[in-house]
């Protein structure tokens, strides 16, 4: 069964006096438990796609449904609950709360979800059990991103949305972060959608969606995706 479904989804932004079409009648279906990479140049509409899917923004027209639930019609509070329970985010710039420690940044999600995963287990999985009491500013970029992954997964969401998760990291650290991300996502059986410019990441995906000028140009299903180690970083 399709977990995620876009039906004729358009998003138009008003920029000054003119309208800018970020998405133009997108139809899309993503199966649950898959690792999907959305590729495309800057301004193609891939981040808009992710934002709409994450409930950060609403479509101008069309319908987005997650496991049959139409999220384009949800109220503000319902959207907040959707973000809290259904999706987890990993940002390029980590977006950790600077005044909370590593442990607190992850356990923060207990405040909003009914079924969180144990904080320490998450931090153990990302290899940061020794840094529980450190503040984000005391960690390296890679470590911060791993905290971000732990936080996203601690909510026990159905879908993990990642926007250029390795964009701010060097290739070696980026590879390590991706390895962690994929291992954890598969371990906990999550759907992962990554938005990136990086063609190498796409080699590991079950499905590649190419976006250009607000439209889906191509969907490639890979029978044998590469592992992190097999990709030439």
């Amino acid at each position, binding site marked *: 069964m399709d977990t995620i479904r876009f039906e004729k989804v358009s998003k138009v932004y008003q920029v000054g006096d003119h309208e800018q079409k970020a998405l133009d009648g997108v139809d899309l279906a993503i199966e649950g438990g898959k690792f999907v990479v959305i590729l495309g140049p800057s301004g193609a509409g891939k981040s808009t796609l992710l934002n709409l899917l994450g409930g950060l923004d609403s479509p101008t027209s069309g319908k987005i449904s997650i496991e049959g639930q139409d999220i384009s019609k949800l109220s503000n509070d319902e959207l907040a609950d959707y973000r809290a329970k259904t999706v987890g985010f990993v940002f390029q710039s980590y*977006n950790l*709360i*600077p005044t909370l420690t590593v442990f607190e940044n992850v356990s923060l999600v207990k405040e909003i979800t009914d079924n969180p995963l144990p904080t320490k287990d998450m931090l153990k999985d990302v290899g940061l059990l020794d840094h529980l009491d450190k503040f984000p500013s005391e960690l390296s970029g890679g470590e911060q991103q791993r905290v971000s992954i732990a*936080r996203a997964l601690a909510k026990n969401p159905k879908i993990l949305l990642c926007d250029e998760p390795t964009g701010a990291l060097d290739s070696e650290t980026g590879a390590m972060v991706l390895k962690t991300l994929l291992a954890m996502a598969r371990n906990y059986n999550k759907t992962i959608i990554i938005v990136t410019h990086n063609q190498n990441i796409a080699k590991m995906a079950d499905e590649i969606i190419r976006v250009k000028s607000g439209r889906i140009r191509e969907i490639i299903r890979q029978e044998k995706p590469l592992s992190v180690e097999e990709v030439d970083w």
Partner: protein
Amino acid sequence: MMFKKLLRTIRRYKAQFISMIIMVLLGVGVFVGFQGEWYSIDKDTDYFYDLTGFADCRIVSETGYSEEDLGKIKALYGVEKAALYISVNTNESRENDVVSVTVTNDPEVSGFMVTEGAEYDPEAKESFWMSDMYAAANEYKIGDKLSLKYGAYTIEGTIKGLIKSSEYLICTPGENQMMPDYKTYGYVYITPEMLKETLGDEFYTEIHVITDIDKETFSEAANKALEKTNMILGKDEIPSYSEAKGEATEGKTMASILPVVFLGIAILIMVTTMQRLTINEKTQIGTLKALGFRDSRITRHYAMFGLLIGVTGAVLGIGFGYFVAWFIFNPGGSMGTYFDLPSWKIHMPWWTFLIVAAVVAFMALISYLSVKKILKGNAAEALKPYTPKAMKRLKIEDTKGWRKLRFATKWNLRDLFRHKARSFMTLFGVFGCTVLLIASFLMMDSMVGFVNKFYYGSMNYETEILLDDSVKGEKALEIANAYSGDTLANSMVSLGGEAVALSVYDVTHDNIRFLDEDMNYAVLGDEGVYLGMRLVESNGLKVGDTFKVAVFGTDTTYEFKLAGVLRTLSKGVVMSAAYAEKAGVSTRVNAIYTDTSYDEVKSDERFKNEISSIKNRGDIIKSFDSFMEVMYLMIGALIAFSIILGIVVLYNLGVMSYFERYRELSTLKVVGFRDRRIGKLLIAQNMWLTVAGYILGVPAGIVITNVLTKALASEYEMKVILGWSTIVVPVILVFGVSLLVSLLIAKKNKKINMVEALKVPE
């Protein structure tokens, strides 16, 4: 081009710009307004005193003075002008009001100015020059007939002119009445010729003198010239001078404390806002530097922000200040019922403008220094966006309880310490607002408490009966017994060179009570005398000490033992009749205080010739209400400005805090926190600061009120009283303002653009 950038930056930060301008406007406005109030009283009264020849010294004797005596005084070194003078209270025939008939034999000394009608004519007979305020209140016009009764004499004539005299600047019939009531009390001037015609002879009880010499030197010379000890009063002992100047001093004291606190808060908040604004502009500043703009050009450009806000706020503030001064000091307001002044111009001390200019310069300097700090390094460094200090572990995190705290508490606590300056300023804003409100309400409670206790407790009578000068001991007692009254025998004595009232009370019906230092009602004992706090202070006395007073016009002196200290309205020596007898003080009863109603006494024919006037306590209290109005006005204005300042300060800092945490708030929202939940976080932090600011502000407000009360001690013997309004209203106002502002800011959560949170910072 840079000017265009300046205008666009202003537009970008319009909320901060407007709030900063409002802060300067309020700070400067309240400061300027309160300075203008006391200075205008000072200047406008001085103008009036000069215009009508207000006497510097008055030589007083019941036996009177002759032309020969006047000649001796005029011949003294340093005497500029002198005149024979008399003023007696008469009964007006139409309304039975009390009207003071005044005569000066030189209109340039203790004279008047004509506001309507004929100029003064020294030869005129059967002519009155009447107080224009009394005429207006009683519908007297020029040309109307007037008939006044003074004992067996009737003074009749036509009103020739309407006037104002600085002798009656505060036109009250006695010391118990704080505010004029022109409906029941007024004054007229007549010529010496008319006095002569009425009495058959000229008789003057005072010599009024205009001189530059101090009272002590003049008294010595005058007593020598007149060959006896005279009661000589300096102008400081005349209510029309002392109370007006006291009002100016009171205003000056208030102006030197509360508005300065006000201005201080505004400046400090301005400094923080200005620094934050410059930080927000850091990348732009860096870009200009990278483009090749010289540091001096960039600093000049940014200093213009501070200068522009400062100048705009100061100009508006000065205008607002003039309005505040006018609002308090205008003929149509409460002050207009207190003072009878011909000129109500608003004057401003020159140094007020200097201080305002310094505030403006300071603000430009702050902008300059903030930019200078950013420009310190090279262009690359300047280009980097501002990052707040990295979070460090707090000491309280090592405590056992820390781990048990909820995430929101931890988050807010760490945020407070991370942004110390902003947190401190918010705390300071609440603190300042609390201090101003507590001080304002405490002052009001204390004054209302004191005056209430005095008017509704000490004056425990219905009617005050003033006896004619001719009434002697036995008769006075007969009248007192007839009305079951307590008696007062009042005379003037000199204590430490100051003319003060010597009041002997025979209290047998609890109609008069006295307030001790603790504001409790005291009973006068017969082991000594009681002094008001001011006299005790100025004469360096303590209970148990003995001191001497001299009786004017005689060589008699009395030695008294100080038995207790009282809180009084007027300065005086108070004793019981029993002690007076013991100390051999000869007295003549001149007032009786009774529970018998005003109407009953008035309609009683038995003592018609012995009673000179009757006063209803209600009328005296009415004047107290008018007095309280003046105070309510000033304190009300301060309260209103404090609330506005509180709102502006908290909103400004709240918005600043909101934008600084925007990314964190966005993250919380993206993670799945509801708007209300995030709002609670923001409100909680503001509430903590409000609680802390309030807790610190209450004692500081009490301290300031105590300082203010001490500074006003020469005016009122007031005790700081914590009333319900001080306990209840400021807490509601401070927390109400804080909650209102927090809700307004929390409302912004709905508009958080979460997509922005996903973006990498520029």
